């Protein structure tokens, strides 16, 4: 795999960094990252991973852009209301960097589709918004031996960690063996 001249120019400030260099930039171009969630976390995550030149991004989300999303899900513009979030995020990412490949999965992540999907990527990023999906992602990442970069938020607090049992680290179930009871405030 090689960089074309446009890419060399685009990433030149990376190529001159000793921590990245041509070898590092090529690793990024070869990397395949699957992102679950194209909302609050997925917006900045996808935009930056795309801009720095991660070669392939997979976006999973079944939701559509709602007016109440716009104040924090910054990849989506007012004109995107009603569009699928993965389509909207893909367009924003590709507008920033057309050199990369973005695959969209406008689906709900489920037992029957998760393993096949994870096998096609190197790293899984969890930006989902519910516990069912978080445990599904954790278990599937474990069975497919993929590192899971996990972020979750609540009000003004965030939690970030990497689950990499293959490298000897803990998994999500080591941290929290069970989810909380169903939310006490239903609507």
């Amino acid at each position, binding site marked *: 795999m090689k960089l074309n001249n446009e890419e060399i120019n685009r990433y030149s400030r990376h190529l001159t960094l000793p921590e990245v260099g041509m070898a590092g930039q090529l690793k990024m171009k070869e990397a395949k990252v699957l992102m679950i969630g194209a909302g609050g976390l997925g917006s900045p995550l996808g935009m930056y991973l795309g801009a720095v030149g991660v070669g392939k991004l997979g976006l999973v989300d079944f939701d559509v852009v709602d007016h109440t999303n716009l104040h924090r899900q910054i990849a989506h513009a007012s004109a995107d209301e009603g569009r699928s979030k993965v389509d909207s995020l893909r367009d924003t990412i590709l507008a920033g960097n057309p050199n990369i490949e973005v695959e969209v999965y406008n689906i709900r992540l489920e037992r029957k589709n998760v393993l096949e999907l994870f096998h096609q990527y190197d790293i899984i990023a969890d930006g989902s918004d519910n516990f069912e*999906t978080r445990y599904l992602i954790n278990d599937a990442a474990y069975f497919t031996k993929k590192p899971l970069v996990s972020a979750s938020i609540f*009000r003004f607090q965030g939690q970030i960690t990497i689950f990499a049992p293959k490298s000897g680290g803990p998994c999500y179930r080591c941290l*929290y063996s069970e989810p909380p009871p169903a939310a006490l405030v239903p609507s």
Partner: protein
Amino acid sequence: MGIVIEIPSALKQYVNNQDEVEVQASSVEEAFESLCADYAELKPNLFDDNGKVRNFINVYLNDDDIRYSEGMSSSVEDGDCIQIVPSIAGGRCAA
């Protein structure tokens, strides 16, 4: 100076919206007894009926999980920090 217990935003409503509560105690258990004596509504959110810390809540003493030290009987001294960290997932949370 006592023991500082840091309260996550999900549970702040049970302690008059404070970020942290200071208590006097010599063990983690005593610290929680003191906390729950002042804020009774907090107790069922932290412990199950058998008095065990709920599975979606972790308790850290000076940045390490008490599960891997002496648990609730871990001793504490003035200046120690106990942090309560609940499982969160986007918009939904423990409380």
